[in-house]
């Protein structure tokens, strides 16, 4: 079973993403800030990371920077409500494979994106 790490400080959002992804057969783990993400990524390996950007205790950018530094190659999809071009570009420069604005897509669309990177 493919393992997905969800990094999202908004707990209801983390929960609904987990529910949806579980319902289509993925195993999910949710953490609520950047520090926790870095900690868990050091211990476990995942097939995909869904990463929020604005979070307390280590934002998404710092997580991306850490992954780069430590050579972890897990693909990361950024799921943020920041919709500015420069945020998108910054995340992609730091190695994010995709970027979506949560309010602009449906859960079904999110699942389709995830599937793309887990084939």
């Amino acid at each position, binding site marked *: 079973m493919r393992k997905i790490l969800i990094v999202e400080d908004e707990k209801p959002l983390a929960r609904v993403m987990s529910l949806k992804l579980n319902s289509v057969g993925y195993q999910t783990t949710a953490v609520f800030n950047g520090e926790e993400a870095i900690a868990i990524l050091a211990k476990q390996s995942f097939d995909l990371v869904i990463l929020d950007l604005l979070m307390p205790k280590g934002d998404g950018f710092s997580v991306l920077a850490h992954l780069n530094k430590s050579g972890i190659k897990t693909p990361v999809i950024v799921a943020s*409500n920041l919709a500015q071009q*420069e945020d998108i570009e910054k995340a992609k420069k730091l190695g994010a494979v995709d970027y979506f604005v*949560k*309010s602009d897509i449906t*859960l079904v669309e999110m699942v389709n994106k995830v599937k793309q990177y887990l084939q």
Partner: protein
Amino acid sequence: MADKIKPKDFENLYGSLFDNTIDGLAYCQMIFAAQEQPVDFIYVRVNKNFEELTGLKNAEGKKVTELIPGINISNPELFEIYGRVALGGKPERFETYVKPLDRWFLVSVYSPQKNFFTAVFQNITSQKQTEKELANAVIAAKNVMNDLQAEKTKLAEANTKEEALVKELEKFKLAVDNTTDNVIITDPEGIVIYANRSVEKITGYRPEEAIGKKSGALWKNPMPVEYYQKMWDTIKKQKKTFTSEIQNKRKSGEVYTALISIYPILDKNGEIEFFVSVERDITKEKEVEKAKTEFVSLASHQLRTPLSTINWYLEMLMSDDKAKLNDDQTEYAKEAYLASKRMVGLVNALLNVSRIEMGTFIIEPKLINIAEIIKAVISEFEHKSKEKKLEVKVAYELSVPKVMADPKLLDIVCQNLLENAINYTPSGGKIKVSLKSKGNDILIIVEDTGIGIPKIQQPMIFTKLFRADNAREQKTFGNGLGLYMTKSIVEHSGGKIWFSSKGGSASGGESGTTFYVTIPASGMKAKTGTKSLT
């Protein structure tokens, strides 16, 4: 002694006096015509100096009219006077100008015996000349005085003018000295020759510190080389005004942002005499702008987060088999979901509007096929147009070339126009999207058979937040931002937008609206900024 002098001696004495006096002497016999009319005279005897004073040689025994032809015409008064005296009149003394001789004489005349006279004369020509010169000199002097007076008056006037000018200049100087903008005047080489007080306020350097130095040397916070090249090219080669944002450094080391405008002052020959630079410290404005942008961006982020939660849980509710909603419940959830989606649209639109209004949005032209953008937008709305049984037709001219345009912006423009057409065309209506080449433009036409725009409200249709009455009645949603945004985007990228509508009625009578958008075939104007529209 007297008795010792003999009459003969007297004769000699007088003779010698006669001959040697410095005056000219002439003893003459008057010749009269009838009725004692003096007509001529004969020089009986003249002395040595006579010849010298008159220039007449061998005069004795000759008539004056022989010696000086024309004298009876030039000096008739001589004959009158001499005649009068010769006939026993009193001695007379007069000045006369003898034109044939071109000489002035002072003449004393007396008659020693009837019909004879003795004329004693002095050549006063040079004296007369001097007098004349003096008179001329006086006239000249008077003229000079007059001229001087006139000059003086002029000068006085000029002085008054100059004073006024100086006063005027003082006013300007005072204004320039005290304006809140930084004003610097340099010579053509860029050496500061004037700096106002704001220079100190803004840069921290006193005007005295700046004068004599290369402009900007003190407060330069190096910009890219191309920046300076462009600046010098504009002001020195093209002799035009250079306006730009620049970053400089205060004496304290703090970097500040300024809006700078430099322009050359040319002399009569079109050569650069000075450069004037006006600089406004916009650091605070920039900070405010940045704060505003950040606020809008953060606010939209904060608004999106609960909306995402609502959307996704409603989606779960409607799709998840486990929820098992009945029909009514499904419908209620659907309404809530649609409203939430509209809210997301509104947040995005507000963010775009704020970017447009702050001028921070980017225009990034790429070589694109507009027809493809239109196709994508139509397919995006396919579900909706099918639901309303609308016939959507397209007509692309094959000759329309690819064009440099920002695909995102074009997408927003097409989305807004097509969405309006779909929203405001009743079921069964028709929509046609055309793409044409027209002159130097590419023309996009979106035509519908919808409710139209009431004539009276047509001038306001592009106004922010404005919605036509019939549109309000038809669709309670809609944020009044679409056309405002569309027009801003089109105009910022060098195009035009207009429409024609037969004018709808509130009841929704079908009258149709056609929107026209042009994009220059040469491409959209690129625009740097900080934010792209979404």
